[in-house]
């Protein structure tokens, strides 16, 4: 029995949102609504340079400014070097607060908590850093080239790209691309690029860290992932989870922009050092310039296509601009690679997916991570193939669309497929006349 034929009592019903009345009456409590007696406010001293060695860091003038409760630098972070994906085996590569070098304009160096935001900003501006400038690289295609200046030099590691099992890229090898491309009636290539995007939820990132009298640290947070961010903070600060508590769960929009834990470890450190509650609400500018954003992606396609529109071979070189550090990009490249050939049955697929570092703001997940980028490239490429072959753009998709039981380039067997059905539904909703043959197609039927 198809599940959709089952009758449910409340599943499938458009019941009202549980928290909707709070929203329309303005009563919903977001993190920024919270204040605590004696609460301090945060400002960050950031790198003005895209790449430089730190020769000397002096926070003493900031510490002496009246109204300042605490200043933290790398010296105050028990486990400064961290990574967001260490749980997936990705090596830690990023200091919470820069120690040896800075690798992007805006990289956090030292944070201040003070009685008000103005004082905190003034104190942050009093922090002195001596630098020795290093060459910087901004274009991932340049960064990949042999002889490119290293994006990062500290912690003794790294080429300018993430190593996937010792390889410079995540690879998919399915069928025999080289042989198939020789047999194709047409070889059609295309190069595409998607740009960086800021998530831009209306609520910026906010956290308030409150030291409790029982020795615990309570962090009120806009994180999209309470346990994930709690684990990050606990490991950076070196506390067991019994000493940390995260409160949140009500967030003013996320879209992937509130996953990386930009404020929580900093307010946590400042609260522990000052013994006072500490708040940090990102300004809109901090969100745009200094938080993780969606990274740009460069994609090159080489397709072997038959006269009837069947794609028999596809090779993709996909290059993700990760910015200065990993954050979640090595994962995004994986996801991109797994989907970058598109929702089509293609028997011979070759994918090289690169996660490349540049001396820019680190990039990370955003709504559609990896697939957004892939979908743009694939779907424009499909139309170009269709136009070149004189086949209708709908027809070429119908001919190649995945069906139930098809295998993907990652060798997964698809069991719940409805691409054809969404095309049919969209055509109907848009008033587009499909042919009788197209209307009769089903994802459940084997390909003719």
């Amino acid at each position, binding site marked *: 029995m198809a599940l959709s034929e089952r009758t449910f009592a409340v599943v499938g019903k458009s019941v009202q949102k549980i928290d*909707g*009345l709070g929203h329309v009456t*303005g*009563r919903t409590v977001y993190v920024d609504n919270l204040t605590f007696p004696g609460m301090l406010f945060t400002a960050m001293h950031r790198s003005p340079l895209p790449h430089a060695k730190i020769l000397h860091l002096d926070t003493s003038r900031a510490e002496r400014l009246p109204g300042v409760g605490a200043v933290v630098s790398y010296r105050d972070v028990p486990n400064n070097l961290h990574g967001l994906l260490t749980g997936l085996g990705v090596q830690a590569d990023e200091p919470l607060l820069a120690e040896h070098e800075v690798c992007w304009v805006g990289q956090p160096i030292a944070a201040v908590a003070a009685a008000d935001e103005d004082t905190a900003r003034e104190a942050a501006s009093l922090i002195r850093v001596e630098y020795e400038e290093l060459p910087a690289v901004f274009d991932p295609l340049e960064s990949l080239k042999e002889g490119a200046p290293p994006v990062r030099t500290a912690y003794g590691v790294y080429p300018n790209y993430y190593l996937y099992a010792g390889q410079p890229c995540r690879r998919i090898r399915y069928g025999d691309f080289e042989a198939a491309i020789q047999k194709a009636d047409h070889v059609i290539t295309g190069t595409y690029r998607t740009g960086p995007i800021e998530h831009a*939820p*209306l609520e*910026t990132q906010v956290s308030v860290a409150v030291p409790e009298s029982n020795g615990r640290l309570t962090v009120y947070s806009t994180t999209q992932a309470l346990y994930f961010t709690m684990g990050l903070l606990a490991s950076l600060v070196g506390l067991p989870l019994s000493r940390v508590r995260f409160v949140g769960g009500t967030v*003013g*929009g996320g879209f992937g922009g509130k996953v990386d834990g930009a404020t929580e470890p900093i307010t946590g450190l400042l609260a522990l050092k000052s013994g006072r509650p500490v708040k940090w609400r990102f300004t*809109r500018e901090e969100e745009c310039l200094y938080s993780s954003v969606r990274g740009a992606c460069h994609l090159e396609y080489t397709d072997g296509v038959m006269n009837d529109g069947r794609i028999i071979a596809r090779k993709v070189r996909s290059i993700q601009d990760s910015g200065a550090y990993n954050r979640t990009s090595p994962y995004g490249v994986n996801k991109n690679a797994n989907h970058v050939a598109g929702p089509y049955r293609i028997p011979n697929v070759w994918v090289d997916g690169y996660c490349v570092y540049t001396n820019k703001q680190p990039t990370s997940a955003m709504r559609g991570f990896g697939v957004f980028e892939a979908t743009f490239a694939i779907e424009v490429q499909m139309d170009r193939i269709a136009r070149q072959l004189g086949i209708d753009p709908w027809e070429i998709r119908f001919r190649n669309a995945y069906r139930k039981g098809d295998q993907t380039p990652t060798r997964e067997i698809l069991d719940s497929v409805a691409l054809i059905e969404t095309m049919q539904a969209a055509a109907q909703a848009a008033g587009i006349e499909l042919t009788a043959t197209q209307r009769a197609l089903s994802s459940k039927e084997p390909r003719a």
Partner: protein
Amino acid sequence: MSVATTPAAQTELVVSFTLNGRPVQVRTRALDSVLAVLREQLQIGSVRVGCNEGDCGVCTVLLDGEPHRGCLLPAFVAEGREITTVEGLGDVNQLHPLQRAFHEHFASQCGFCTPGMILTAKSLLDRSPAPSREEIVAAISGNLCRCTGYRSIIRAIESVAQQGGR
């Protein structure tokens, strides 16, 4: 030392205005915004910080019935005037028609922009009880929403407009 030694100079001001029908008095400095005063002194949680520079409309308040950016409005300008926030429209037990419509039409997702949207819509309906769809769209086109795609918001306001603003 005062830059202009004149009785007209003030550094701390006592400002009285009506907030959601009740008289209030606050002490402010020259450029403290209505947004800051409402949040920090009057515990109005619905007026929120989205950009603090007038771009987003999240901090919209009604000043004598007209929409204003709370972040761009110096608090002292409110002296003797009436400020309305969404708390002043209605509460869970007695929803304003717009609040009910926003709830019933799923016109609020994360909720952060919702108070500003509702207030902007209210001022429109007060000026023009039966606006066209174009007028509704124009009225809210200075308030950003990142979640809904605006469609459900437009439907919600339309539903109230069709009932004569009630």
